[in-house]
Structure formats: structure tokens, C-alpha cells
């Protein structure tokens, strides 16, 4: 946010008027390392790596020396993993299936959460999931997993039949229903997962940048009475920071929950 704000300060002071933040927040960022290679690292990639590194480090510290009577760190880690286990894996998939898919769901949840949360962490101020490849890859993982789960549980024939020709419908309807189901399940699902996450992160970031850059503009560029609007935009920035914090957690939860639901639907005998 500071970087973005600084950027806007320079833009605003050069041209003397306010420019709303745009797609340049996410794309065409200057490379920091390995420029021009497939391993190029820019600001967002760096944030992504640091976020994941920190998250794994915290879990490692908390679970490094497990004890029967948990310390504070271990309690928090157990609580967090217990949340995914109870609220997502066991609740949607049941005990047996939930047990099998818990590592995947926990990885999805905490990975997404860590990368999302950087959006409100000072000096990072952008979500690691706010450029397309990460959400797309996560969506692809969910896609592969629920198709794999369905084929493994029912065999390919029954899985596709269950998916495309849901039971309890008179047969002429299938002419209409099968293509819709195909598009829904095999195309829309992974894309909707990816885009929901991506757009939430992008829009959240833009909203915060807008609030804070506008504040900056009102306070330092626009002089006089107009500058008082900055108080309002600053207040909105504060409020939206909390809103975004909630959204980051919610998006991680929704992504993981939907993955579990898709797996559950795929392995269900009938639905």
C-alpha cells in the first residue's frame, strides 16, 4: 500500500490530478530477481513466497516438538487444523473420506489464507493470490481432485453418467440437461473457483489502494477545504481494511469448502 501510495503521489504530483489505481497494480511490475527467466520474481511473487514461507515456519515451530499437553503455539496450530478437519473435511465428506482428503484441504485452506492475508499486512499490502496463475492452479487442483475422487469411487462410466445424467429426471430433459451439467461441472467449476478468488483479491486491493491513495491525494496534493475529504477516505480505508481481512479468511474458507463439496458430489452414488 505504501508503494502504491508512493506511486500515486508521484503520478499525482506530476500531473496535478488524481489517478485511480488500475490493472498496473498487478501487471507489468518491475522484476526484482532473475529478470526475463521463467523464475522471474517481482513484488507479488516475493510476497507470495514470503507468506508461504512464514506460514510453513509457524506451523513447523508449533508442531516441531509435539507434546501431549500442548503449549500455546501447539494449541493454536491444533485449533487451526482442527477447524479444517471438523468444519470442512468431516462435515462435508464424513469421517472416512474426510480423513483421506484432510491433508489436501488443509493445504488449500492455509495456503490460500496465507497468500490472501498479505493484502492487509503492512509493507506487503498485496495478496499473493491476486495474479492469475495461483488461483488458476488452485482451481485446477480442485478440478483434478474431484474428478479423480469420482472416478476412483465409482469408476469412470458411472461417474460421468452420474454427473451428466442426474437421476430422477424424465429422459427428454437430458438433451438439455447433459450439456448444461457438462459445462457447469467440467468447465465452470474450476474457473469459478479461480476467478472468484482472483477477483476478490484484486478488487479488495484496488479498493484499499483507492481509499488510501485518495486520502494521500486529498491531504497532500489537493489543498484547502477539499483536503478534508481525506478524513472520510481514510476512515473508509480503515473500515475496508477490516472488511478485507474478513474477506481473505472467507475466500480461503469458501475455496476449500467448495472443493470438499465437489469431491463429495463426485463420489456420491446419486445426487
Amino acid at each position, binding site marked *: 500500500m505504501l508503494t502504491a501510495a508512493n506511486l500515486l503521489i508521484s503520478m499525482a504530483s506530476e500531473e496535478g490530478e488524481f489517478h485511480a489505481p488500475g*490493472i498496473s497494480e*498487478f*501487471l*507489468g511490475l*518491475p*522484476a526484482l530477481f*532473475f*529478470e*526475463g*527467466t*521463467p*523464475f*522471474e*520474481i*517481482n513484488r507479488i*511473487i516475493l510476497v*507470495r*513466497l514470503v507468506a*508461504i514461507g512464514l*506460514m*510453513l515456519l509457524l*506451523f*513447523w515451530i508449533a*508442531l516441531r516438538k*509435539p507434546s*501431549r499437553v*500442548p503449549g500455546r503455539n*501447539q494449541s493454536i*496450530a*491444533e485449533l487451526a*487444523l482442527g477447524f479444517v*478437519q471438523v468444519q470442512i473435511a468431516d462435515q462435508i465428506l464424513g469421517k472416512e473420506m474426510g480423513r483421506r482428503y*484432510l*491433508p*489436501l484441504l*488443509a*493445504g488449500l485452506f*492455509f*495456503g490460500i489464507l496465507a*497468500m490472501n492475508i498479505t493484502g492487509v499486512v503492512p509493507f506487503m499490502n498485496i495478496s*499473493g493470490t491476486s*495474479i*492469475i*496463475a*495461483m488461483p*488458476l*492452479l*488452485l482451481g485446477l*487442483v480442485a478440478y483434478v481432485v474431484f474428478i479423480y475422487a469420482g472416478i476412483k469411487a465409482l469408476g469412470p462410466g458411472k461417474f460421468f453418467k452420474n454427473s451428466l445424467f442426474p437421476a430422477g429426471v424424465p429422459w427428454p430433459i437430458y438433451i438439455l440437461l447433459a450439456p448444461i451439467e457438462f459445462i457447469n461441472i467440467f468447465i465452470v467449476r474450476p474457473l469459478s473457483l479461480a476467478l472468484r478468488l*482472483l477477483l476478490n483479491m*484484486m478488487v479488495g486491493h484496488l479498493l484499499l489502494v483507492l481509499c488510501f491513495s485518495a486520502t494521500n491525494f486529498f491531504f497532500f496534493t489537493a489543498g484547502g477545504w477539499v483536503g478534508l475529504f481525506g478524513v472520510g477516505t481514510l476512515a473508509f480505508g480503515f473500515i475496508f481494511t477490516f472488511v478485507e481481512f474478513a474477506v481473505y479468511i472467507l475466500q480461503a474458507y469458501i475455496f476449500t469448502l467448495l472443493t470438499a463439496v465437489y469431491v463429495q458430489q463426485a463420489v456420491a452414488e446419486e445426487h
Partner: protein
Amino acid sequence: MPELVLAAEAETNPFLPAIYDITWSLVVLLVVMVFFVRFAIPRFRQILDDRAEAIEGNIAKADDAQRKAEAALEQYTAQLAVARVEAGQIREQARADGQRILAELREQATSEANRITATAKAQIEAERQAAVLSLRSEVGSLAIDLASGVIGESLNDDARASAMVERFLADIEATENTAPSAGKN
């Protein structure tokens, strides 16, 4: 900036991934999944299992202790019952023994008393026999003495007669010590 076509396109279209973005997404995903599959979740389960086991172990231990205590109590109760029976038997035995001893003593005493009585009777009988024998031998001489006395004196005087009898009796007493009752006859 990379000069690759895809990268160039990715700089204007937010829905086209850049290659480096894909690379680092894959790396991140792989690392996270390996971490959770290999470390976090197994460790988490190990902790929960260990805790459950510990709790169950303690419950089992408590159950075991309870069972042992109950067994011990049962054993003690049984032993106590046996001891009670034994005590009763001993008491009974003692009573019987006491009665037997008492009976024996009583019998002994009775037989002793009988023996003493018999001895006494035999002695008395013997003494009586002796008395009878001595009386029999003496009564004759006494009668002769009396008769000679009666004949030797004149018996017309009452006072004399009674004095003579008196003297006679006194003589008998003086001579006769073993059978006073026979002397008086």
C-alpha cells in the same frame, strides 16, 4: 521486462498467466502440499492419537486398579468367612471338649465316692461283725456274772437291788469298752 510474447500479453490481460507466475505458483503449491501431506497433518494426527491413547490408557489403568481392589476385597471377605467358620468350629470343639472333660471328672468323682462309700460300708460291716462277735462272747459271761450276783445277794430290799444293778452296770462299763450298746442291753 521479458520480451516473450506470452509475457507481453500477460502484462495487459489479467486472465493470462505469465510464465514466471506459473512457475512460482507450482513451486508454492508443491511445497505447501508436501508440507501438509508429509508433516503437518501426520503430526497433527499423531498428537491427537497420542492424546486419545493416553486418556484411554489412564481409563484402562483406573479400571484395572478398580478390578484389583474388588478382587482383593472379595478375597478378604472370603477369608474372613472362612475364619469365622473356623472360629465357630473351634468354639464348638472347645465346648464339646469342656463337656467331655466335665463328664469324665464327674464320673471319676462318682466312682471315687462310690469306692469310698463301699470301703466305709465294708469297714462298718467288719466292725459290726467284730462287735457282734465280741458281744456274743461277752454276753454269756455277763449273764453268768449277773446271775451269780443275783443269787449271791438278798433281793428283798429295793434299795439294795437297785444298788446292785447299779454296781453291775458300772462293772460292765468298767470292763466293757468296745461295745457299750451291747453292755447296756
